[in-house]
């Protein structure tokens, strides 16, 4: 994928049939020539299943465009990308550094900072779309030479001060993200990153390789912000987690430990554990005797990964495609959320062939020293803000597995659910819960009635608006705490009408009637608080949310015929006609006594 040539990329884009791909308008503001990044942005978007339409601001007009009244640049952009190259923003800091007096340097820094701040504020008056702002690259050969970094206020320090300032103002504006170009520069390497010829010919500073790396970095954010990320890493065992075959070489014979030849596997395991702590779900899929594998997990002294880190496993002699499907089903995620790592080319190709939606990672046996690097470079589990739920997600998934085993001991669902001792807590969105609520709107695909994606700032403005209510649901039971798993957003329309904008539930807690009781409580609370007489709701079909299609029917909502097969289904209901739902399963705590007026 990353080796593809420019011509090939261009040819594939030209031949691509993107009918049915959602259009993704991207606005790019810049102070240098950057038109050449377009092909990379469009190509990576195409790979992710979007039809990107990139529009460019005028050359070196970022501030003017940000503060102008003209709306032409930001009509409905989904993403705003900002690239400011230091040379064109402050020639003095970038190139005339040694000629600056202390005072002049101060003035110059203030100029840059003001520019950044005003441009960011200006962009925000036009659009609330996510802003991806590219940092300044550090000078690789500072103008003040080896002496500069020894004193304070050198060129390197000045550039990082500007980057720190940028970080600070981005932190204060929700839904803005800093893209670290120094990482791109380091990955590509200084000589290959800048193209001096085009800098002089066209004020285009970056080489093709640099543009590709930058576009790739941008896309990690764009994917993450669109909820298009992987969730689960499925690992083979022999020659992946350790060298050699556990069943043949035995405990002492396998390679694993702090020194060579076991060290590549040891470091690979450590990196996998880092993913686990980031909230990535781990699973095993190995052709082996189960006992041989667990013997290594339980008895090998150098195993970093433990049984408890894995939420599911299929250790058998069946084909891996079927095993992967079962793992996804058991974990309640879609197979497109899987990454599959194996040393066998045969298994990798089989999965590629049968399940093209699964991302594969081929770890070739003779290159164990590269395993850790390969995993790091995948960088596909991108989440931008960490929530407490992420960190304990893998743990919660394990609890779910225990719950299922428990379920098989109960005859009927009702008695099983009652025995779980479910407790649901309803709250109104607040500072603590807003990031998680936004994250759920971005990530939840299956039980999501309208699939509207909201940033943290969107949710914050709903939470502050007198005409909106954002409810959240947290759920726990005797096995553990699932955390915040449900979101209900309502909008008051007129004196007694209410429109349900969003209703979603994380799929890992479905099937416990919590979704029904949650919706019921929200409707009841709003009916009394706002005096709602007439409800309006929608079901917007997507390829993934068929599960939620008839949800509103059970409350007595009346379906209006959809205009076309794939368009939104509208529902309405008079409060007096609402079907009340009894609940003997879940204990509900409502923590919104201090409601807004």
């Amino acid at each position, binding site marked *: 994928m990353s080796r593809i040539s420019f*011509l090939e990329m261009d040819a594939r884009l030209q031949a691509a049939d993107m009918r049915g791909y959602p259009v993704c308008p991207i606005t790019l503001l810049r102070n240098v020539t950057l038109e050449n990044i377009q092909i990379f942005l469009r190509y990576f978007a195409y790979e992710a299943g979007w039809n990107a339409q990139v529009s460019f601001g005028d050359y070196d007009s970022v501030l003017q465009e940000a503060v102008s009244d003209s709306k032409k640049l930001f009509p409905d952009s989904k993403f705003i990308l900002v690239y400011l190259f230091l040379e064109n923003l402050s020639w003095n800091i970038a190139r005339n550094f040694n000629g600056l007096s202390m005072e002049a340097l101060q003035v110059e820094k203030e100029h840059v900072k003001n520019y950044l701040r005003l441009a960011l504020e200006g962009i925000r008056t036009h659009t609330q779309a996510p802003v991806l702002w590219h940092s300044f690259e550090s000078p690789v050969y500072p103008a003040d030479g080896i002496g500069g970094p020894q004193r304070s206020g050198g060129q390197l320090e000045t550039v990082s001060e500007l980057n720190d300032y940028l970080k600070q103002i981005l932190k204060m504006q929700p839904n803005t993200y800093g893209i670290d170009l120094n990482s791109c520069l380091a990955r590509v390497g200084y000589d290959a990153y800048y193209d001096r010829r085009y800098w002089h010919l066209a004020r285009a500073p970056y080489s093709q390789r640099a543009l590709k790396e930058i576009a790739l970095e941008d896309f990690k954010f764009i994917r993450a912000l669109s909820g298009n990320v992987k969730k689960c890493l499925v690992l083979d065992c022999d020659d992946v987690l350790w060298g050699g075959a556990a069943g043949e070489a035995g405990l002492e014979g396998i390679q694993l430990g702090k020194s060579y030849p076991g060290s590549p596997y040891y470091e690979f395991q450590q990196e996998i554990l880092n993913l686990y702590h980031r909230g990535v779900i781990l699973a095993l899929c190995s052709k082996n005797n189960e006992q041989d594998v667990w013997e290594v997990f339980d008895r090998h002294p150098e195993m970093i990964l433990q049984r408890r880190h894995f939420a599911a496993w299929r250790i058998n002699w069946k084909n891996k495609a079927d095993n992967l499907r079962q793992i996804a089903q058991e974990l309640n995620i879609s197979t497109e959320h899987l990454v599959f790592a194996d040393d066998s080319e045969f298994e990798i190709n089989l999965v590629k062939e049968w399940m093209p939606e699964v991302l594969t990672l081929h770890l070739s046996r003779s290159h164990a020293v590269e395993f850790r690097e390969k995993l790091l470079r995948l960088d596909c589990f991108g989440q931008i803000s960490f929530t407490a739920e992420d960190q304990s997600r893998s743990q919660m998934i394990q609890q779910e597995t225990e719950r299922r085993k428990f379920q098989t001991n109960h005859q009927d669902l009702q008695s099983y659910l009652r025995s779980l001792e479910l407790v649901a807590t309803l709250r109104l969105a607040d500072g603590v819960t807003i990031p998680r609520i936004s994250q759920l709107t971005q990530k939840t695909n299956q039980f999501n009635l309208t699939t509207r994606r909201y940033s943290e700032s969107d949710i914050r403005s709903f939470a502050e608006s007198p005409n909106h209510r954002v409810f959240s649901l947290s759920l726990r039971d005797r096995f553990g705490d699932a955390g915040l798993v449900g979101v209900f957003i309502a909008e008051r329309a007129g004196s007694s009408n209410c429109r349900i904008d969003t209703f979603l539930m994380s799929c890992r807690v479905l099937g416990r009637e919590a979704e029904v009781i949650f919706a019921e409580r929200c409707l009841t609370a709003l009916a009394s608080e706002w005096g709602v007489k007439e409800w309006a709701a929608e079901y917007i079909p997507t390829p993934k949310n068929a599960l939620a299609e008839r949800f509103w029917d059970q409350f007595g909502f009346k379906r209006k015929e959809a205009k076309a097969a794939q368009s939104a289904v509208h529902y309405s209901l008079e409060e007096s006609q609402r079907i009340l739902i009894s609940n003997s399963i879940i204990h509900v705590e409502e923590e919104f006594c201090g409601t807004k007026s």
Partner: protein
Amino acid sequence: MEQKVKKIMSQIFRVAEDHIREDASSLTIDSWDSLAHMNLIAALEEEFGVQFQDQEIIQMTSFEAILSSLALKAGSS
């Protein structure tokens, strides 16, 4: 080499291959603007494994000039 260059030019400029005659230049091909030129150079460099100097880049605005620049590279390597 000539055929390969024609093929690349036809793809970059979005014109049929037989439109790229011996006398083709940025004057005869409308879509040969400065941006397309950058794309053309990027494609040529990648496909032929060469790197052009800045002076070469500004002179390579005709089919003939491209061929002679490439021939020079082939001769010197």
